[in-house]
């Protein structure tokens, strides 16, 4: 187990329906954009290998359904996440206002060990659209939300266009870096949870050998 070639990083992409979660993912993983992706139902993931600081990591990006009724399924999919991407649409104010509820929902359902400093990243998508269609005084509102609803924590913020492939790569590289940190922080216990259904003792002995106690 210590000979794991690649570090697997699990990333969950959340946000209101239609903000472009699937598009962002498709743009990043497959370098393609379609005007119309169908609504995502349930959850599925794509993987992409990246090199971050000379380390090869495999980014497992989970695309989720935006409709509210599917939120209760999070428990099944969020487990073991290393980073969470909160998306909004720069032309849709409601999607911006819902960011904090997505964050709270994620923390409740994912059961991360460090909710206070779990890595979140915020992506505002669709910056390619006309300036006139964008949310008026977006920066102010965003600042307001970060301060009042997201606990003043300065989550990294990216404005992207999945359509024109602006900033998507950069944003996800950042996601990978943050996820890697989180993984190193409590990777050991994560591995336990994933693999321990056969023989808890054996697996723990292996972990002890793998030198995580440094």
């Amino acid at each position, binding site marked *: 187990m210590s000979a794991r070639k690649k570090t697997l990083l*699990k990333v969950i992409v959340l946000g209101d*329906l*239609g903000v472009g979660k699937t598009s962002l993912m498709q743009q990043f993983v497959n370098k393609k954009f379609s005007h*119309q*992706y*169908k*609504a*995502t*139902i*349930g*959850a*599925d*993931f794509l993987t992409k290998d990246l090199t971050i600081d000379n380390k090869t990591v495999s980014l*497992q990006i989970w695309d989720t*359904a*935006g*409709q509210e*009724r*599917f939120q*209760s*399924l*999070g*428990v*099944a*999919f969020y*487990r073991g996440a290393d980073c969470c991407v909160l998306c909004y649409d720069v032309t849709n104010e409601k999607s911006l206002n819902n960011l*904090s509820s997505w964050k709270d929902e994620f923390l*409740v*359902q994912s*059961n991360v*060990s460090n*909710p*206070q400093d779990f890595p979140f990243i915020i992506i505002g998508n669709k910056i390619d659209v006309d300036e006139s269609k964008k949310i008026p005084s977006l920066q102010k509102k965003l600042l307001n939300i970060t301060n*009042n*609803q*997201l*606990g003043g924590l300065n989550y990294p913020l990216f404005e992207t266009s999945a359509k024109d492939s602006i900033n998507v790569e950069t944003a996800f590289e950042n996601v990978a870096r943050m996820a890697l940190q989180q993984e190193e922080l409590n990777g050991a*216990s994560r591995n*336990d*949870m*994933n*693999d*321990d*259904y*056969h023989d*808890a*003792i054996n697996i*723990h*002995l292996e*972990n*002890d050998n793998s030198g995580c*106690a440094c």
Partner: protein
Amino acid sequence: MQSVSYFPTETHFSKDWEDLQLAHLHNAEIEPAHTKDEVILDAIDRKDALKLAELARQSDGLLNAHLRAKAWPILMDHCHSLTDNEGFLSTLEVNDSEPHKDEDQVLLDIKRLFTILSHFNSFSHEVNSSYTTILSQEDVEAMRKRLYCLIVKVLRKYPCLHYYQGFHDVASIALMVCNDLEDHDDQAFAIVENLALYHLRDFMNPHMGLSINHLKLVPLILEQADPALFQLVRQTSSSYTATYGAFYDYKFFPALLALLTMYSHDVLSFNHVMRVWDFIFSFGAISVSAYIYASFILHSRAKICDELGVKDLEELSSADADLVHKIMSPTFLFAGVSEADLNSVLDKTASLISQWPLVSLFDSSEMANLWFREFNTESVVVTSSKFESDESDSSSVPRIISPSDLPKIVDIQEEQQTKESLYESELFQRAIEQDSLATSVNSLDGNSPSALSLSLLTNSLSNLTAVSSSINSRLSYTSSVILKKLSIQSEELKNNKPTRKETALSVRTNIYKLSLTIGLIGFLLHFLLKHSDVSQGYSSKSFYSLVRKFGTIFSNESFWNNRLVVQASKSAGDLMSAIKDSEFSNWGRYLPEVGLGSVRKSVFALEKMTL
């Protein structure tokens, strides 16, 4: 002309079709028809649903959209006839009735619906089809509008049904199949209405709970048909890992997309969807969907082994849960499905159904018996599926639902669902209390080195956090219904005092939140302290860090922005300091009871409230 039919030379005749023709030779009473579409047309004219069902299960199904548009309503009517359809359509314009709350959602989904274009174009290459023109963008737009009207019509006629993402995929198929008919929109409406009431009703409840119950059927079928595949699915499920194998909830999420959309959401090609629908309608039961899914998994066994890197599943000692989710998902399972694959999958499905009909599945396990017999007696699996494999059984004829009955049924369904999820979380909790406790304590009893027990301790701790938080979310999910009811009650009582209503509600919410939090703290403390005799230093250290952590959570205004909770956290702090003053060795004795007790109590209290 008749002699042609006795010795069919047409190449598209399938094997079983020839058998049928030969059978006709010996049956003078039945007038031999010439080709399969003539037989189908004949059956349609005679409204012979049994004959149509038989034809629908053959390897080329009901041949084309034109025949399907006429045959499906007969297959459906065989099970459930609808009344006053025309009355509704002729007297009620869409604009006249109250808008449904989900209409915006419908619009958003339809805007993004690609199916129409892609399906229609695949459609037009069909040989015997009357669709010859490839649709322009305008035509697609027109189709989208018609689809929107279709869905909105259904929702407005039955406001108690909730729209779910995926229902639009189902409706789009119905619309396309009926496109060739004169009264296409009415026909499509009849099909979609029938589907919504008798097949997809469970998915259109206010919450997802009952939809999840349908997913449980897939592992249940696998359990009988292929124990090794069942093991793979079970061992990678979160309920199983969290309880060390003490509890498995059968929730098979990879099948969600396929079952909710009846395989119509980018899952299979249009012609394959047609075949699958023929097959499902021929049984008149949505549970056939789950059998088909299980059959697909069985069919893909070799592919699954390949992906897991083993020759046979027996060799497999462990598997990654996410990978298993992926290979059990439609994108992997249905990739590159050929006509022949589909035929063998459907044949296999038919034999699965006759070998293990729902009745025998429900008899096979106590848990499965609960899902659709004890609880959820109003589920479509019970009310409009044929429970028996024996089709002549008249006792299983589903009853007809009138629009006025539907709200009651949906209410009952929701209520039963709440009870079931409460019951399930209780089972889950018991599994954790008994087995997880036993295993972790037992492993600590052995003379293991302290480093090992330390890692075991942290592991059981992290596992318990997972478990308790999932209980937490389950409870909050089930309680949302209760809270909703409470809010309605207080609204009635305090109509003139909205502020008091609000505070009353928020106090209730917070008392509830608080009790869960106390339960959670109790859980954690219990596990730290239970093992405190083994690694005292470690656990006391983490105990303090834990207290600090909860302190920060409580004091964080954005998280618990309520006076009540702040007070409670203060008293919780008092309690903790009191405990700190008392003897260290005594902690372990009292705290477990506090933790587990309060969770049990809140479950109990919730139960009482629902009764």
